C-alpha cells in the first residue's frame, strides 16, 4: 500500500455470551439444534409476549468488561432499536443506546513489531436475531433458534492503522473472551462477529474522511484482507480525484472481493426509545467488586509472569497462558513448589501428546493435579525414572489409584530398600574384582560400568540417585 496514505479503521465486535439460556427468555442458548426448536412466544415475537432479563447475561457481560479494563456503569437501561427485517420477529431489537452497560477499556496488541493500545469506546448488551438463509429457488427461510441469544457489542475507537493491527486485536480479544469463559470465539459459527469501519487519509493528516462499513467478515484473515482491499479501493478513488461515498460492503470470500450490500431500508433511523417492558439496571458496587475479585488472572499477566519469573521460553509461555483450563492446570501443578520449567516440560511433552492421541481437551484429561503432581515428584525424587513414569501415567489414565500403587503393580522399583540394593551392589562388586581393582587404582569413571551392572541385576529398577550413593560408598570400602 502506498506510503502516502494511512488507514483509519474501527471494529465493532458482537460476541455471543455463553449463558445457558437466551437473553430475554429461557430457551436454551445452543448452536446446531434442529431449526426452530429452541423457540417460545417471547423470542418468536408472538402477540402478548414479554421479555425478562437473564441475570447470567449481566454476570458474563460484567466479566467481559472487567477483562478489557472498561468501566461498568452501575446504572444502565435497555432501548428498542426499531427496524424491519425477516430475522427480527418483534420488528425491533432490544439493545442499549444512550445508557450502555460500559464505556472505556483497552486491548494491548502487538503488530508490525510494535506494541500498541487499542481503545474501546463502549460495550453494551443486546439480543441476536434469527438466521436467514437463501434457497436456490429464490426464496429465503429463517431459523429463529439464534433469535434472542445474548450479545455484547464491543465498539472500538478508530485506532487501527493497519489490517494487521485489526487481526491482532481480534486474536487477543477472542483469546481473552474464551479465557474468561464468556464467549467461545468461533467466528465461523458466528459466536464472534466483526464489522469494520474503514477510511483512509493522507499520512500525517488528522482529519477523518468518509468511511465505509464492512460486514460478513467471518474470519480474522477475512477481516484483514477486507480492510486492506477496501483501503486500496478508497486510495485509488482519491488518487483519481474521486470521492468516497458512505456505503455498506460485504466481503465475498469465494472471490476475495468486496461487494456493495443492499442497505436495510430506513436503517438510518432506528427511532430508539427506552424499552418499556424492561426495568433499568442498578448494579451495586459490591457486585462489580466481587466479580472483579473472582476474575482469573488474565493471559497477558500470566505470560509476563511466566516469562519473567519462571524464565519460560516464548513457545512455552504462549502455550501455557492462552487456554484458561490448561493454564489453570499448569498452575495447579506448580502448587507453589514445583519447578516451573520442569512442569512446563511435562505439559508440553507428555500431556500434550496424550491429549492429541485421545482427542481430549484438557478438561477431559483424567489425571488430576494431585496425582500428576505426585508422579512428577516421584521422578524428581528419583524413585521413578522418566520412562517408567510415562508408563505409569498411561495407566493412570484409566486407573484412578495413586502413583505408588500403580508403579509397584507395573513392577517399577519404588520400594527403595537400602539393604536390598546394597546386597545387589555387593554381589556385583564381588563378581567384578578386576574392575573393582582398577577403580581403586584411580579409574573412577568405572563407576559407570558398575552402575550399569547393578541396574541390570536390579532389573532396571534401581533408584539411580540412591544407587549412586550406595555404590560410591561401597567402592570406597574393601
Amino acid at each position, binding site marked *: 500500500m502506498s506510503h502516502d496514505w494511512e488507514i483509519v479503521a474501527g471494529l465493532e465486535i458482537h460476541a455471543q455470551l455463553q449463558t445457558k439460556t437466551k437473553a430475554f427468555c429461557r430457551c436454551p442458548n445452543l448452536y446446531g439444534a434442529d431449526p426452530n426448536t429452541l423457540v417460545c412466544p417471547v423470542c418468536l415475537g*408472538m*402477540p*402478548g409476549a*414479554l421479555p425478562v432479563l437473564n441475570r447470567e447475561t449481566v454476570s458474563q457481560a460484567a466479566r467481559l468488561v472487567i477483562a478489557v479494563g472498561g468501566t461498568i456503569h452501575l446504572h444502565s437501561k435497555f432501548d428498542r432499536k426499531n427496524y424491519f427485517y425477516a430475522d427480527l420477529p418483534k*420488528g425491533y431489537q432490544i439493545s442499549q443506546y444512550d445508557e450502555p452497560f460500559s464505556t472505556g477499556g483497552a486491548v494491548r496488541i502487538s503488530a508490525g513489531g510494535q506494541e500498541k493500545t487499542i481503545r474501546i469506546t463502549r460495550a453494551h448488551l443486546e439480543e441476536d436475531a434469527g438466521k436467514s438463509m437463501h434457497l436456490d429457488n429464490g426464496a429465503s427461510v429463517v431459523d429463529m433458534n439464534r433469535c434472542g441469544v445474548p450479545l455484547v457489542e464491543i465498539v472500538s475507537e478508530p485506532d487501527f492503522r493497519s489490517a494487521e493491527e485489526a487481526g491482532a486485536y481480534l486474536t487477543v480479544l477472542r483469546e481473552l473472551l474464551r479465557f474468561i469463559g464468556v464467549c467461545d470465539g468461533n467466528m465461523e459459527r458466528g459466536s464472534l462477529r466483526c464489522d469494520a469501519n474503514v477510511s483512509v487519509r493522507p499520512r500525517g493528516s488528522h482529519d477523518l474522511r468518509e468511511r465505509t462499513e464492512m460486514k460478513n467478515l467471518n474470519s480474522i484473515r477475512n477481516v484483514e484482507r477486507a480492510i486492506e482491499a477496501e483501503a486500496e479501493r478508497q486510495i485509488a478513488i482519491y488518487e483519481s480525484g474521486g470521492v468516497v461515498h458512505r456505503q455498506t460492503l460485504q466481503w465475498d470470500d469465494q472471490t476475495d472481493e468486496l461487494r456493495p450490500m443492499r442497505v436495510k431500508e430506513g436503517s*438510518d433511523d432506528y427511532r430508539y426509545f427506552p424499552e*418499556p417492558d424492561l*426495568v433499568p439496571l442498578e448494579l451495586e458496587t459490591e457486585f462489580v467488586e466481587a466479580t472483579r475479585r473472582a476474575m482469573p488472572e488474565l493471559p497477558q499477566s500470566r505470560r509476563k509472569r511466566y516469562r519473567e519469573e519462571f524464565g519460560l521460553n516464548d513457545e512455552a509461555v504462549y502455550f501455557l497462558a492462552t487456554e484458561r483450563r490448561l493454564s489453570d492446570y499448569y498452575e495447579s501443578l506448580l502448587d507453589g513448589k514445583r519447578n516451573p520449567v520442569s512442569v512446563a516440560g511435562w505439559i508440553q511433552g507428555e500431556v500434550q501428546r496424550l491429549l492429541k492421541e485421545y482427542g481430549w481437551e484438557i478438561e477431559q484429561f483424567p489425571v488430576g493435579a494431585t496425582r500428576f503432581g505426585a508422579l512428577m515428584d516421584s521422578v524428581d525424587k528419583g524413585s521413578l525414572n522418566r520412562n517408567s513414569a510415562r508408563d505409569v501415567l498411561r495407566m493412570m489414565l484409566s486407573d484412578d489409584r495413586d502413583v505408588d500403587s500403580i508403579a509397584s503393580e507395573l513392577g517399577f522399583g519404588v520400594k527403595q530398600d537400602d539393604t536390598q540394593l546394597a546386597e545387589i551392589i555387593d554381589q556385583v562388586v564381588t563378581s567384578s574384582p578386576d574392575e573393582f581393582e582398577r577403580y581403586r587404582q584411580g579409574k573412577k569413571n568405572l563407576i559407570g560400568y558398575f552402575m550399569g551392572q547393578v541396574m541390570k541385576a536390579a532389573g532396571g529398577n534401581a533408584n539411580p540417585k540412591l544407587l549412586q550413593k550406595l555404590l560410591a560408598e561401597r567402592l570406597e570400602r574393601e
Partner: protein
Amino acid sequence: MPLLIPSPETLRRNPEKLPEAVAQSLALARANRHLGAFIELLDERAGVSCGEVMARIRKGEELPLAGFIIAVKDNISIKDVPLTCGSRILDHHPATFTATAVERLERAGAIVIGKTNLDEFAMGSSNENSSFGPARHPLDDTRVPGGSSGGSAVSVAAGWCHAALGSDTGGSVRQPAAFCGIVGLKPTYGRVSRYGLVAFGSSLDQISPFAHDCTSAFEVLHAMAGADSHDATSAHVKVPECEVLSLPKNKLRVGVVREFVDHEALAPSIRAASREVCDALTSAGHTLVEVSLPTAKLAIPVYYIVATAEASSNLARFDGARYGKRSADATDVNSVLELSRGIGFGPEVRRRIMMGTYVLSAGYFDAYYRTAQKVRRLIKEELQAVLAQTDVLLTPTTPSTAFRIGEKVDDPVAMYLSDIFTTPANLAGLPAVSIPWRSDESGLPIGMQLMANYFDEELLLSAGMELERLRPGV
C-alpha cells in the same frame, strides 16, 4: 341492567346449575348478536372448563371465583383460541400461550365463555374501529358502548356475564363502564401481569375487569393480581390479604379536581351528576377537598404521543412473517411487510402507527416524545402530591354519555378528547375505577371516577362501594 343468569353466589352454592348457566350465557350472547359484543363464543371450551370446575368443587377444593362466568377481550391471549385483536391482520391466529391473568382466573374457578369485540388493537373510544363490525350499546343500539373494550362492557352490562376482562391504556375500560352503567376498574400499573395482553402502550396498559359492583370487581382483581415471572414490569407488591370488600372504615378525604368538575367539555347532565355526588358524600360525613391539577389538561397530547410511540413499535411484529395474514401480492420481503400491513390494519391503527413513528423519528424525537415524557413526569408528580393529602380523587369518568355510532368517527381530535379524565391515571400508573351513578334524562348511564394512590385498590373500591351505597334510587 339486571343480571340475566344466576349470581355467582347461587352457582357456588349449587354447582350443579353451572352447565345450565353457562349454556344460558352463551345463548344470550348468541341471541343478541346484533350488539356485536363477541367475536368468538367458546362453547366447547367453556363446557370443558365447567366440567373441570365442578370436579374440583366436588373434591372439596376452595375456588374463590367458582360460579363466575366471564368474557375476555380479544386482545388477551388464550392458548389455541383464535386471537384477532379486532383486526384482519391477525387472521384468527391461534394463540400459542394463555395470558397469566386468564390462567389465574381459570385456576380460581372462573369459566370463560368467549372473546369479546374491541377497537382494533385497543385503539379507540367507541368500538367502531373493529374489523368485525361495531359493538353496540345494550340500552340503545344506535349508540356506542364505549371503547376500546366495548364488547366486554356489553357482555356484563347486558347481564350475560358476571364479569369480563378488558384492557385500559387511556380509559378503555373505565369509559365503556361509564357509558354502559357498570363498574370498570383499572388496577395500579404492574398490579396485574401483562403477559398475554397484546401490547398497545406498554407503559400504560393494564388488564382491567368489568363487573356489576365493586365487590365482584375486587374479587376478580384479587384472583389475578400479583407478580409474574413472565412480566418484568409486574410489581412485587403483596396482594391484600382480604378477599372480601367492605365499606370504608373511616370517613374519606375526597379530592375534587377543580379543572375537571368544571371542564368546558362536560355535558350538563354530567356536570349535574358530579354535583350530586359531591353533595351526597358531604351529607354522609366525608370531607371534600378542592384540588388542582394544572398540568392534567395536557394529559391528552402526552398520552397520545407516548401511547402511539409505543404502539408503533409494538405493532411492528405484525408483518405477515410468522403468523396472521400475508398479502398474496408480495414478491419480496419488503412488499410482504408493506402490503400485509397496509391492508391488514384499519384506518385508526394506521393513523396511530403513523403518529407514533413520526414522534420517534429523527428530528422530532426531542420536540415530541422526549417532551411528552417530561410532561408525563410532571403530571405524575402533581397527582402524587394531591393524593398525599387525600384518600381518593373524584372526577367524572367521561365528558358525555354514550354518543351515537358514527358521530365522532371523522374527527380524531374530538374522539381523543373524550379521554380527558381517564388518561391521567394511566400516565401516572395509578389505580382508578368508574362507578355507575345514575342515568340521564334519556336513560343513558353516567359514571363517576375515583382515583387512589399506588396499590391502594382496596381503599379505592371501598370508596366505590360507598358511592354505590349513596347513589340515588337505591
